[in-house]
């Protein structure tokens, strides 16, 4: 127990340093080590007589690498180790490539391929390097800003109010609903205290909550009750029995469960009426009407009834919208998850843009050792106020948190890949 507390205290003490000018150099450190290595390799290969590619064991490449390593003047051990690792990866990849293809294509072409691919890799890194600048000058022309804003607009838009955000989300739902959903469904798992009495915290959507949202959507479409619209006389809104929704998920209802159920309901735009009904909030009713998720029917008694006709995304996007609007109150887990998604999409988008699909060095960029040097800082950079504007203090800095990136990368979905393609197309335009 003691050690645990110590750990978190140490974490806190580091927090005061989290300024833009602190994080950007950290982000650039490794990139500025990678790029020269690629550059010098390109120069060396360019100067080589391709005939040596026919040498059986390609010892020459090893010799060159060892020569290059000797020139290493860096004094920071971690960095020189990283550089050595990076360089040897590059040479390994080249060797494998040469051995694989030398029987099939001419040595001179082999050389051209390698030089081209190195050139692309250098280009990609130089984009990553100048993705933004230290004093954030010409902010709206920097890649980081433009890309964050572009992706944000699709899956986590900003807006002056809920209605605005909801509209934006819905207009992108056709192609990217799965991404929008993925952005809230954290696969990482932290045990954290969500019920802080002082704050209203929005957590990610767990599989169970996802099913509850699912149930609510279906029940509204199937067999809703109707009750008076408190804010507007002569109108009726659809209602569900709270128990119908939550009963399958709760063993016995006590105060804590009541509260949890109400919290979940609130995040999907519902409220509890008369202690037993779940009904859409007044402002949500407006929203639903606007997007024809409610239909007006005039009853025989002259009362106007709002009949629900929800889609799969109706309630889910409300959750997204509210999370986006109140992004200062997202749970730690969700902040990490969202920024990780952004960082990955930006990173992969740039790679996709600059590297051809068959680039032999793609592997190095996707290597976890490279990922963990770039993504964490990209996450932080993209969380700053001008960008995503999330609480970057919640982004974890420990070794453990970096490991979560591995989980995250393992959980990618097809639709995210489509978004990455979209982003790389966008890069092309700017």
């Amino acid at each position, binding site marked *: 127990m003691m050690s645990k507390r110590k750990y978190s205290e140490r974490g806190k003490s580091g927090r005061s340093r989290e300024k833009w000018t602190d994080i950007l150099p950290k982000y650039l450190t490794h990139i500025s080590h990678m790029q020269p290595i690629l550059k010098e390799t390109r120069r060396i290969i360019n100067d080589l007589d391709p005939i040596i590619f026919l040498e*059986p064991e390609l010892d020459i490449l090893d010799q060159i690498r060892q020569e290059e390593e000797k020139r290493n003047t860096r004094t920071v051990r971690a960095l020189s180790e990283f550089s050595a690792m990076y360089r040897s990866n590059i040479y390994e990849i080249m060797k494998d490539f040469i051995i694989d293809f030398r029987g099939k294509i001419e040595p001179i072409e082999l050389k051209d391929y390698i030089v081209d691919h190195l050139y692309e890799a250098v280009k990609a890194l130089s984009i990553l390097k100048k993705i933004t600048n230290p004093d954030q000058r010409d902010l709206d022309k920097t890649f980081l800003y433009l890309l964050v804003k572009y992706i944000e607009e699709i899956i986590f838009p900003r807006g002056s109010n809920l209605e605005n955000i909801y509209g934006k989300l819905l207009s992108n739902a056709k192609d990217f609903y799965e991404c929008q959903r993925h952005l809230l469904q954290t696969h990482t798992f932290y045990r954290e205290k969500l019920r802080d009495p002082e704050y209203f915290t929005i957590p990610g959507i767990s599989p*169970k909550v996802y*099913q509850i949202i*699912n149930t609510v959507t*279906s029940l509204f479409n199937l067999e809703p009750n109707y009750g008076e619209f408190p804010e507007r006389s002569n109108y009726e809104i659809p209602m569900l029995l709270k128990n119908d929704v939550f009963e*399958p998920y709760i063993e016995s209802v006590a105060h804590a469960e009541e509260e949890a159920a109400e919290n979940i309901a609130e995040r999907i735009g519902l409220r509890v009426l008369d202690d037993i009904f779940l009904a859409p909030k007044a402002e949500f009713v407006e929203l639903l009407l606007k997007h024809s998720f409610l239909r007006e029917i005039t009853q025989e008694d002259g009362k106007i009834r709002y009949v629900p006709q*929800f*889609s799969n995304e109706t309630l889910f996007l409300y959750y997204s919208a509210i999370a986006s609007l109140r992004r200062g109150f997202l749970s730690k887990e969700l902040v990490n998850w969202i920024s990780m998604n952004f960082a990955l999409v930006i990173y992969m988008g740039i790679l996709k843009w600059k590297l051809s699909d068959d680039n032999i060095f793609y592997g190095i960029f996707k290597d976890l050792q490279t990922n963990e040097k770039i993504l964490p800082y990209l996450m932080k950079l993209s969380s700053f106020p001008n960008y995503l504007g999330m609480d970057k203090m919640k982004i974890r800095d420990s070794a453990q948190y970096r490991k979560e990136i591995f989980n995250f*990368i393992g959980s990618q979905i097809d639709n995210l890949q489509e978004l990455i393609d979209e982003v790389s197309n966008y890069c092309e335009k700017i």
Partner: protein
Amino acid sequence: MSILDSKWEGLLEAFSEGLELAIEELKNKDVENIPGAKDALLDRLNVIKIQFTRNKGELFERVIDNTIQNAFFPDTSNFAEAFGKILKSRNHEQDFIINELINGFVTSRTKAIASYDQGPIIDRMVEAFAKRNDFHIVDHQFYAMFGDPNKPRSHIEKSLKELVNLFGLVSEEFEIDRDLRRSEKKKYTFYTFPPDILKILQEKYIIIEKEKGIFVKALLEMLQNSKNAKATEVKIEINVKSMRFIDNRKETKKNDDTEKNGDYQYEQFKEKKLQMFNLGKIIWKTKNWIRDIDTKNNIDTLKKNSRQIEGTDITIIFYEENDDILKKEYEKSFRNEEGKKFKEEYLLREAISNIEISNMKIYINSDLYEDIEKEIELDLSVYKREKNKNLVYAHVSEAFDRNVFICLFLANIAVNRNNLQKIGGSFTINGISAIFALIFLLSFMPKINVEKNHPILKNPSFNKQKMDIIPKSWMMKQVLEPLFEPLIKIIAYRLGGGRWLNQIIASEINKKIHNQIRFLIKDVNKWILGNLCRVEIPIFVEISNIFAEVPIDLGINED
């Protein structure tokens, strides 16, 4: 009538009664907003009632045994076969179903195998496998990637062990005497998929690269040298004890230098090393030099030859201990079945098959080598090769994702269906049966046509090619409840016999599970503007096709 038969009859009867109840309820209530939808559903339920109880529920057997089980829960005791079938039924939408099958367990509380905090573990597996290039996870690497500094090592050790059991991985230990860091003895454990599973994955999910053995490599090097030196003809005499390698290589440009400086060629020639040196005693003749090499006895002499020869002439007398190495290498190349020729020659042929010999003629024991079998042993067992020390490189392809593991997980449950303890007991059984019941019902829902100007047709999320509008009233509690339970029982009985059936008791907890599952498979059973739409994925099409065949079949029988 046997007890089994009577039980089955009883289940069918209960289903029939349930249907009647559902039909009654449906008649009393109308929640549909598309004209004709309710009638279409009523008609369909009536047809189901007639058709499915016929011939001792023959149709049930076809739908559940042949179609649903085949795609998601194969009835076999062979793990690899089960996995292969589930994997085969994957596509973008059916992945959602496969995912829901897992989510179904997640909802069935922590007792089930895949509890929530194990969810990310599947992601971990994907990453751990993707990271290495030999399709293995190593325990130490796994600890390094996923260990938690706040938790003792035993925690992550346990978690890895659980994973290994959960997915049925196989392990192999590897001990090194001195590790790099502390020069201590260290034991690593490698985990990989069982060989049969690897074989299935090979087509799409993992890319196997074969590493050549030393003998093949050495041969390849010699051939490559001849090729580089523009030889047009290579003659190789090979037998168990020795090999003679003669080519007619042209002299390289260095020739001029040699004439000017006699020592130059000596140096060139002397320095040149072949991998073959390690395999036998060598007499290497080229131009007017003879080089004798015996690495084992540290002999490497060079003398002038009185006779000048064209090209190169290398004779190798294999060391005796090579026999074992070659034997192993030969076994690894899995050509034992051919029998007649001796192993050296096979290896030689393998080496040649790895090189482009377009303008080179190669004679093996005076026969002209013909390039016939380009596809070198793709069907080899990866695991077996692996045992013989890292001969295979395998890495995962883009397609490799978490669903591969989910398929593996399902396959594991499918083959262990009789071991209730292992698969998570009542929760799993209720979960699986209920989801299959949903798939069953969904497949038989009739399509509804709407007017051309119906708003749903204009909705961007409605895909006319892939989706159909179906009646939504079947999902009403009053209709589904009487239908669902007997159907779940029927499915449980077909899946796991009496043992499974006994777990579907009408307990409160089971009712809750069924209620939770009622609205699952949301991604293929979508709500669009209040209308229920079915995404026409293969499993639904396949099941409904069975139904479409039936009336015709029956018609013929009656004739």
